[in-house]
């Protein structure tokens, strides 16, 4: 596949991420606009940071949910932070599942929280696969700036 075709693939992939609501185009474009010669791979760096940080938060959430008497206040605080960072990268579906989780949390519904957390992790994982494939395509198309 030649370079032009690859670049078209990248554009198509990017559009589909927006159309399928994996990503909020407005927010994601904001991040893309922050890339320049000094920060050529900012978007990928931020996404990598997000996944590293969310692993840490997920661990805390899981630990809290495993205790005999669940501290819903703490759970809500952790999920609030995760929701915030998800929306900062424009992760719509993930953010929506977070809101669902928070509702169960407010109601003190442990079962609901367990169920909602599975959905959060699922969307989180799906988005990761999608983004990895997108960044891979970008590299192949030579769209990643080399300083």
């Amino acid at each position, binding site marked *: 596949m030649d370079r032009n075709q690859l670049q078209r693939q990248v554009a198509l992939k990017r559009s589909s991420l927006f159309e399928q609501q994996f990503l909020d185009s407005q927010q994601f474009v904001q991040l893309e606009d*922050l890339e320049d010669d000094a*920060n050529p791979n900012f978007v990928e*760096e*931020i996404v990598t940071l997000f996944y590293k940080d969310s692993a840490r938060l997920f661990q805390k959430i899981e630990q809290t949910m495993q205790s005999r008497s669940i501290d819903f206040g703490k759970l809500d*605080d952790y999920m609030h*932070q995760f929701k*915030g960072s998800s*929306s900062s990268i424009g992760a719509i579906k993930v953010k929506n599942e977070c809101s669902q989780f928070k509702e169960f949390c407010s109601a003190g519904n442990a079962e609901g929280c367990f169920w909602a957390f599975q959905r959060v992790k699922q969307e989180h994982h799906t988005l990761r696969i999608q983004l990895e494939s997108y960044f891979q395509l970008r590299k192949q198309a030579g769209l990643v700036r080399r300083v």
Partner: protein
Amino acid sequence: MEEDEFPIGLKILVVDDDETCLFILERMLQSLKYQVTKCRGAEEALCILREDKGKFDIVISDVHMPTMEEGFKLLETVGLEMKLPVIMMSSDDNHETMKKGIIHGACDYLVKPFQRTALRLIWQHVVRNRRNMVALAAAVAEPKSCVLVEDDDDDDLVASPAKKRRRLVWTAQLHHQFVTAVNQLGHKSTYYECFTN
């Protein structure tokens, strides 16, 4: 900072316990040519601010770090101790939280995720704050230039310019400092004495 360069190089301290948000905000502010220092919590922020009081022009801080208490405590401390303007930010767009932020002295409250354009004009808070600090210093230096009188509607003391020579702009920040001073001084009459002598 040179006048014609302003607001380029405005020194901003950014506080957020979420790394993703912290890095994005840093990058946004840098792209606007501001100078950014970032840190992950209230304690670290206060350490940095106390180390060199004159170093920063403005602070931008998250509310939940991880609870509201940390965010609002930092807001109050920075306002009272360093007299710097503080912008609060949060993905919490609850009106009560926003109101609480303003009452505790925040000069602005940004709801996350925000666009870069929301940050473009934050330098205005720096200018406003500096003006208010100058006015406050003048009022304290020459108390007769600004007399505090009891408002008819409630028991609040409000600033009323005497002889129309100096105008004091009464901000939430000033109000907070004023409340602290009154509490320290105790009885109202003592307070009046202080300002009419």
